[in-house]
């Protein structure tokens, strides 16, 4: 999977979790999405881990600055799976 494919799959997860539509690009970050608060973040990560079959290590998701870096992290963890 490349970054674009991962983001496309993330888009479907975001579409189900958020009430307002969000268009994901590599530059989008949590602060651009009003609904993406610490609460929805937890649930979002559970959904992402399940959908991609990955497990992130402690603290590393919050180090990802935007959707692009997050997608790269998914690719990295997926390559180990």
């Amino acid at each position, binding site marked *: 999977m490349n970054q674009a494919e991962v983001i496309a799959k993330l888009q479907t997860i975001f579409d189900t979790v958020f009430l307002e539509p969000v268009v994901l690009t590599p530059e989008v970050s949590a602060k651009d999405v009003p609904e993406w608060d*610490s609460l929805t973040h937890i649930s979002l990560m559970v959904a992402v881990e399940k959908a991609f079959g990955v497990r992130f*290590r*402690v603290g590393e998701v919050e180090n990802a600055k935007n959707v692009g870096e997050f997608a790269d992290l998914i690719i990295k963890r997926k390559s180990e799976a």
Partner: protein
Amino acid sequence: MDVSELKSLLLNSDPAFWTRLVALTREDERDFAELFLLSSWRKKAHARKLAPAGKTAKPIRLAILGGYSLYPLHELIEHLCEVQGTPVELWQGDFDNYISEIMDEGSELYAFAPQVVLLLPSENRCKYPGQLTDARELQQAEAKATVNSVLDLARRVNEKTGAEILLANFRLPGRYDLGAFRSRSLGSEWTFRKWVNLELGLNAPSYVHICDWEFLANRIGGIQASDARSWFESKQPGSPALLVALAREVTHLIASLKRAPKKVLVLDLDNTLWGGVVADDGLEGIELGDTSPRGEAFKAFQKYIRSLKDRGVLLAVCSKNDHAKAAEPFEKHPDMVLRLDDIVNFKANWEPKSENIRRMAPELNLGLDSFVFVDDNPAEIDIVRQFAPEVTTILLGPDPAEYVAQLQDCRLFEPKNITAEDAERTNQYRSDAQRKALEESVTDMDSYLTSLVMEGVINEFAAVDVPRLSQLINKSNQFNLTTHRRSEAEVLAVMNAPEYIGFSVRLKDRFGDHGLISIIIGQKRGDTMFIDTWLMSCRVLKRQVEEEVLNELARLAKLRGCHRLEGLYLPTAKNEMVRDFYSRMGFNLTAESETQREYQLELATFQPIPTKINIIRRAYEPS
């Protein structure tokens, strides 16, 4: 989980959205991500002002506080409570701020005026601070102090608000740490928390309801329940699976505050209390008792049911059976755990089960919503769901080994306190039942039969069916007018003899295929068609198969130039139920003796009887 239907219902502003949402949420295997997704759809529906049909209950004010982040646990609780029909208005405390929230009389907690408080004390405050080898008295004193401090918090909230307190106890570690020494000292986390949990439960006052975290974590597994990362990252109480289990438990406890436990367990008999069909297999033929694994399973089920009775649940029987045959195992079978004395209301007849349960309610002076009905047959469960929807139904699974677990997990008979009066109730209700008269009520049988979407296939005897035909001819006892037995060779002989007609009926409905369920053999004697054999499986009694068989018999007889049908009833020990069958079907009694009854039906005036079965093939017709 497929949410596309949910989505389109919401886009069409269809209130059926809510029914679907409830159904999807109720399924036990829903995981955290799925429930969270369903919750977000629920909120979308609210945002679009799509209201559920009917009135919604007034929300209960629920405060959640504790030593954990209460997000997103609160989201699951809010969702499950709304879906269950006990919506909550939530207030959440801050992370690990519960002690000051409770101690400070001016806190937001008290301004909120909760009716129910969920308190999750921090497990970090449930540890023995000293050494594993300290004197046991010291360790016990520390455990007692922990228990007292938690119960004291509960007492303060209750005194100030009058709220019911849902108090979480402490989970046990899931790791091997300390090994065999774990249980040798009260100073280990494992033993210390167990001790605290025991003391909490045994000493909690009546306004405290233990939310048994230890049990829940044990049920899903200690490792599955814990998630160190989610603690370090966001102070979660446990893994997503544990959050789901906790939220479901809290929701259940909230419902239990308002809802009384069920009072009556209505039991089917054949393949529910024993294996097999007593009227066909006989007292000796049913599977019950320690001589076979299946028999043991049924006996264990009866023992569990008996324990429900001992804690105050009333037992009733509702069976499609001849009364005397149904009662026989209760009176005579050595391995029956349940006896007639244990049953407050015993209905074995051929009326729809929904009717029978409806009659029990006034006889026992209880509302139908106090009844739980258990059966292994989906069609019986369905008729009760349709025509006595207030009754809670439990469809037993395919394996009797799991019957006990199914009842143990049904969550319908959880007592708040068991009293001596509860145990005495059985006697009182039994005599009430004997006094009250029965009353007929109005199940719309036609609409039930229509809803089954039945399809019948009628085939003349064919070589491929011979083993099954012979088997049924030799086994069928109850619905069997003549009980003429025939070997496979004899069935073949009938098939090939020109003066005989022979056909079978297969029936399907929306619950599945019943297979070959009725067999008829006719013999042409001049202008009369003599009915040598008419038998049917009792599973499909009163489904109008009888009527369709008569229609077919009349049709075939006319085609062969006959003017009348002649029927014969030969009584046996087991076919009492068809004694008056030919009269019911419109035949005239022409001769009667001790050993037989003869009947006739003139075909000139016979009109086919309309039924709800769609006959897709008839005998001796090209397929």
